[in-house]
């Protein structure tokens, strides 16, 4: 469903960060991407979403056969792509719930559905907030405004739960979460997951993968996926780090 082929992207000064990424994601799969700091994991998520800081030098990204690279960012999202950034942006003054509703209605509008009613939205919101054990603080404040690192991550998963995307790219959603929050968020992700959907998890730690079983584990280094394997690869990386890979 998500097909990334030979994707190359650079930043404004011409430095190439992604040097030919290939990734094939099918419905029902969970892909974990690991790799040392600065290898290009976050860049990959932002490039497929169309972040203006990056220039695509070559390659293709397709979602269900549609070329994402030619779409507006909002269209990519409304077509079913969701990315959770490593450092969610604060938007003071834009109420979190109003934002969620606006986002959901944009998607419904794009897909030709009528706007969601107030009651129905309220119900949906409450249900998902309960799933993620979130309290009213998330309702009253601005988007991520003054949220702690962990609260921001939880708010990202709330958005994912409400927007119900086909493919979610979650960038270090586990970092900053305490032990209970990790369990809650991971359960939330499992709950949203279904055989028609797919999740890509960027993580540095095995512990998230204890909760969410990956179908594949990939190692990204210097802008390329240099090794792929099953869940056991994550365990090996946790024990031995990344250096052995290049020696191979």
């Amino acid at each position, binding site marked *: 469903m998500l097909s990334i082929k030979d994707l190359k992207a650079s930043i404004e000064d011409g430095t190439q960060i992604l040097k030919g990424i290939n990734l094939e994601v099918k419905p029902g799969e969970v892909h974990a991407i690991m790799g040392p700091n600065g290898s290009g994991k976050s860049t990959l998520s932002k490039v497929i979403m169309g972040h203006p800081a990056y220039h695509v030098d070559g390659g293709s990204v397709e979602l269900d056969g549609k070329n994402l690279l030619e779409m507006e960012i*909002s269209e990519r999202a409304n077509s079913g792509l969701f990315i959770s950034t490593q450092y969610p942006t604060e938007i003071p003054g834009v109420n979190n719930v109003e934002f969620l509703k*606006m986002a959901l209605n944009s998607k419904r509008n794009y897909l030709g559905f009528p706007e969601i009613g107030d009651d129905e939205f309220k119900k949906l919101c409450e249900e998902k907030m309960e799933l993620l054990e979130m309290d009213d603080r998330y309702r009253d404040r601005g988007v991520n405004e003054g949220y702690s690192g962990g609260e921001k991550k939880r708010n990202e998963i709330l958005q994912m739960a409400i927007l119900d995307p086909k493919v979610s790219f979650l960038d270090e959603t586990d970092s900053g979460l305490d032990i209970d929050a990790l369990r809650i968020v991971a359960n939330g992700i499992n709950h949203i997951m279904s055989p028609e959907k797919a999740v890509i998890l960027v993580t540095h730690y095995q512990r998230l993968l204890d909760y969410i079983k990956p179908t594949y584990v990939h190692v990204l280094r210097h802008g390329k996926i240099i090794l792929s394997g099953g869940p056991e690869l994550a365990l090996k990386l946790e024990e031995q780090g990344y250096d052995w890979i290049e020696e191979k």
Partner: protein
Amino acid sequence: MDSMNKVSLAQSRIQAIGMPRRNNELWTFFPVAKIPAASATNFATDSATASDAVSIPSTFEISAEKDFAALLPIAKNAHTMVRNIADGESEMALIKANNDFGHTVLNIGKNARVSLEILDNKVIHELAAERFDVCVDEGADVEIFFANPANELPLRFRHFRIVQAANSTVRFSSIERGNGISRVSIDDFLRGSGARFEMRTLNILNGDSSSHHRLTIYHEAPETTSVQFARNLLDGHANASYDGSVIVNPDCTKTYSSQLVNTILLSEDSSVSVKPVLKIYHDDVECTHGNTCGELDADQMFYLVSRGIPPESAKKMLIRSFAKELFYPLPDSPAKKRLLQVLE
């Protein structure tokens, strides 16, 4: 001083200081060439006799006045409306000038609580000028606000001379979104300890409109506070300027003053000028000023559109939140309600 004196005094004072010029520090950023000299200085000779006799507060100091805009309504023999609000009273009032030139005197008693909305005079010819003299007694709490509708104002001056006694609070809040040229000038005198002045102004400008603020805040007693907060959203060829001076007298310990101007330029041709001036004659004071200017925050834009919100809607959301944020800190009051409602 009788009324005839005040008119002729203002006229001769204008003669003495001359018409506003660029090199006059009170008019640095103002397009002075746009002031129609004829209508501004053509004073009717018999005007003085038509004036109503009003007792003038000693705080007027016309003969020392330096701002042309403060003198003009008086020199034009504007009808003076006086409103006295007794000690301890609570009052909500609307003020509206019915002529091109207006003069309002407000005497606000001890511990009074007052909310004043200034409405626009929609039938203006070439030039409109209003002056407000606000005398605030001890412990009074006053809000003054206006949100000008987006109409065709050719050229408008509003001058405020505010004198505050101990422990009084004045909150001045405004939204400018007219199509013409507007200048607001404020001289605020913090004369008693514990006095506090807050000003929040938002300029939402487009086309060739421009909005200019010139403030001087005189901290003349210890433990006084002034807060200035201006935000500009400028599109088209719009231009905004902010000229804010803070003067802290000797012996004014524990003065606090802040000034912050945030501008978002929505077009290539819009512009902003900011001039902060601090004259501090004491050590034990905290004065800050800041000035930011930029476009809409790219990360915030990305975040909104990456959740499926179309770019135009995302832009509107960010603009609206930037604008509304300015007034969130106001206490719940008619001013807050009205200003936020205007921004919906």
